[in-house]
């Protein structure tokens, strides 16, 4: 049993800074946390680690509909933010599984969903960031405008840093208009090679699709291409013509929300392996998946392999990672099942990452030992 963790919930950025400064000067280790919706990821923290909870940093500081920007504190639940923005016909174009946890957790893990295809990931939508470092300093980078090249872009450095560099307290975000309507082109096949050819046929055309995913379960797969905008159904039907030579059955679904809800849900599981590859690697990824369900952002080459509960789960996960080599594969859900949830990066790159960690968190306060390469 790990020791019972202490927890503190600051109610302002200043309070968070004071708390962190005090904790780090006492030699404590800190784990930033929101709603714990991605709690497994990155594995266990050291015993005695203090949780700094962002629940008190829960303000939507500004929403500027005319500029398509918002300033949001880290503890704001993504679902609450989307509801707020939706009243003006806007959204933060990130649609991770479940309800998406808090904005801070989303930034720290760089989690994403099918909209990644069109709008990019967390790194592409954070236009400014405020962080508290282990010495209690409060640092900002970026700003509140979409276009800005003044100073270094720390927003990207902190996106996906899993709370190991400091506490993200506030972000400025680029927003997008909600699509007037959506429609999804669905194409099914039992042959991974045919499926891959369909993906490549699609990504050669300027479809401007919102999402372009593949799902593979057991022995069959589907290509899912979602369109947004007033002409979405026509565009979906038109896109089907690009598949005429591809020996797949196609269909256009207008009421498509459940398709994408299922796609998002399949990014979670008893164990989930996220793999970085290329679109042309899809057959190899499907072959390596075995019994796992595959969700692929097919035109990006990023896939999630979701394993159901089983007695030999850890072995299955490791066998799949082995089969995926040399592609980088991280274990997200079920990270505790394996010895090393992170893949081993190139030694030169890892050395540089260690130098970044040493400069930003010289006291080793933030989640030591939980990140890539034991950072």
């Amino acid at each position, binding site marked *: 049993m790990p020791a019972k963790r202490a927890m503190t919930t600051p109610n302002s950025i200043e309070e968070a800074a004071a708390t962190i400064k005090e904790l780090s000067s006492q030699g404590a280790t800190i784990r930033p946390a929101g709603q714990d919706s991605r709690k497994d990821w990155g594995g266990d923290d*050291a015993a005695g680690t203090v949780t700094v909870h962002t629940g008190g940093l829960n303000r939507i500081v500004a929403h*500027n509909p*005319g*500029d*398509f*920007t918002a300033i949001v504190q880290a503890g704001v639940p993504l679902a609450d933010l989307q509801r707020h923005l939706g009243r003006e016909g806007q959204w933060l174009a990130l649609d991770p599984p479940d309800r998406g946890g808090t904005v801070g957790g989303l930034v720290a893990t*760089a989690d994403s969903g099918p909209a990644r295809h069109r709008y990019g990931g967390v*790194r*592409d939508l954070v236009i400014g960031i405020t962080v508290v470092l282990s010495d209690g*300093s*409060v*640092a*900002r*980078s970026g*700003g*509140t*405008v*979409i*276009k*800005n*090249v003044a*100073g*270094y*872009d*720390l927003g*990207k*450095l902190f996106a996906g840093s899993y709370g190991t*560099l400091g506490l993200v307290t506030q972000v400025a975000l680029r927003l*997008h208009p909600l699509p007037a309507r959506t429609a999804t082109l669905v194409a099914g096949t039992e042959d991974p090679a045919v499926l891959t050819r369909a993906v490549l046929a699609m*990504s*050669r*055309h*300027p479809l401007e699709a919102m999402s372009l995913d593949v799902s593979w379960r057991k022995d069959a797969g589907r290509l899912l291409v979602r369109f947004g905008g007033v002409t979405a159904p026509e*565009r979906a039907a*038109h896109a089907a013509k690009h598949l005429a030579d591809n020996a797949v059955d196609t269909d256009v679904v207008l009421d498509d929300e459940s398709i994408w809800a299922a796609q998002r849900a399949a990014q979670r599981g008893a164990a989930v392996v996220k793999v*970085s590859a*290329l*679109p042309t690697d899809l057959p190899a990824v499907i072959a390596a998946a075995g019994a796992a369900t595959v969700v692929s952002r097919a035109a990006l*080459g990023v896939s999630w392999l979701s394993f159901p509960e089983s007695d030999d789960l850890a072995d299955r996960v490791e066998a799949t990672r082995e089969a995926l080599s040399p*592609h*980088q594969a*991280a274990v997200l859900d079920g990270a505790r099942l394996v010895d090393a949830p992170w893949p*081993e*990066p190139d030694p*030169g*790159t*890892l050395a*540089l*990452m260690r*130098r*970044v960690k*040493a400069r*930003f968190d010289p*006291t*080793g306060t933030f989640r*030591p*030992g939980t990140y*890539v*390469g*034991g950072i």
Partner: protein
Amino acid sequence: MDGRELVERLRRVVGDRWLLLDEHDLRTYESDGLLQYQQVPRLAVLPGTAEEVRACVEICAQEKVPWVARGAGSGLSGGALPVKDGVLIVLSRLTRILEIDLDNGRVCVEPGVTNAAVSAAVGPDFFYPPDPSSQIVCTIGGNVAENSGGAHCFKYGFTTNYVTGLEVVLPDGELVTIGGKELDPPGYDLLGAFVGSEGTLGVATKIWLRVVPVPEATRTLVAFFDSTRQAGEAVSAIVQAGIVPGAIEMMDATTIKATEAMAHAGYPVGRGAALLVELDGAEAECDAQFAEVTTICAAQGSDDVRVSRDEAERQLFWKTRKAAFPAMGRISPNYFVQDGVVPRTTLPDVLVRIDELAAEYGLTVANVFHAGDGNLHPLVCFDAAVEGQAAQAEELAGRILDVCLEAGGSITGEHGVGVDKRKHMAKMFGEDDLAAFQRLRCAFDPDGRANPGKVMPTPRLCGEVPGVYRQHPLEAAGIAERF
């Protein structure tokens, strides 16, 4: 310091021909695109391979000499200005396109490849979206350093959204790969930190880029308005309607007058503002939205909307817009190009404030800008022959940035900080912010040898890394070890 050893070692790497020592040869490199700063470097090298670049940087590290990397030298903030006692590393010989993989939407290039050459290499079906107006000459290496944008970045994004991997020579001479051909490698997003770091973290020797299919349709119009306020409101109405134009560019009365004299596009001299709107994408969606844009422009007071009938006319619209900077030479002996950003909704008020400032200084300020993302390029006109006017103009250009910051904007949208805007950095960022920037700088370049004197407002030194690492409890217990 005895420089002979440095010179001989560099000569052995690049050879006689590619080592420049003569003052006459070095003058070629004394400025980048921002001519008011000049500095002749101690010497320049033009390496021909990534390994030669690495060796040059390593020699600089060992000889404790600062260095600056330079591409085409088209930057507009003095980012590639040489340092006096330093080495200038010119990358113009690294021009190979190493791989084109259209199935996966990737191209891999050396840093001296020009921006336009990337699109040419992947055309006609694909293109590389970031399109700085210097795209014919500017290099991808320079684009990476500056995180370059362009007219189409409101819809398509910036260089940082298209770089998936870099091979980088760090200031200690080590070659590392960050990111790669594939997306989302686990670990810190060093790529995101490096792109836009203005040559202060190292030098890229190989660059993987994402390229995308050429849009199915493009529709372009120019609408004329009585005032920039009206045109600004049209921009807001278009974007509010959920339309994301490929480009949306505005010119004011002064700019219309100057460009018409050069481009002869038949623009009505005397009108208050011209708005160029380009939509691209799927044909059906493009047509539907184009009709809406035309309606919005009319509703916001434009009685003169011209739709390009063919590619030739579209090119004429763009030629007129891109003539804005050179055309200014026809109405003013000299001018400074400013680069600031404001939230788009504040544009009308900011333009009024700029007019007031121009009147206060008795100088003409022409305005052209990327209106979609609020990126202003005020052109501050002056006559260098009139004593004190250049200084006045520079002061005015600085006060325009103050206006941008007061409106919640930025001191630079695409030109970078370089040497030119260092003095404004402390207005935008506090001491703790700058200290955090310095942490990143020190992680990559603890000795401050890569492009020193750029970006940061005052020179700073890196301390030792305090403590480096505390032993992790799991490590102490022998359960885990560091690799």
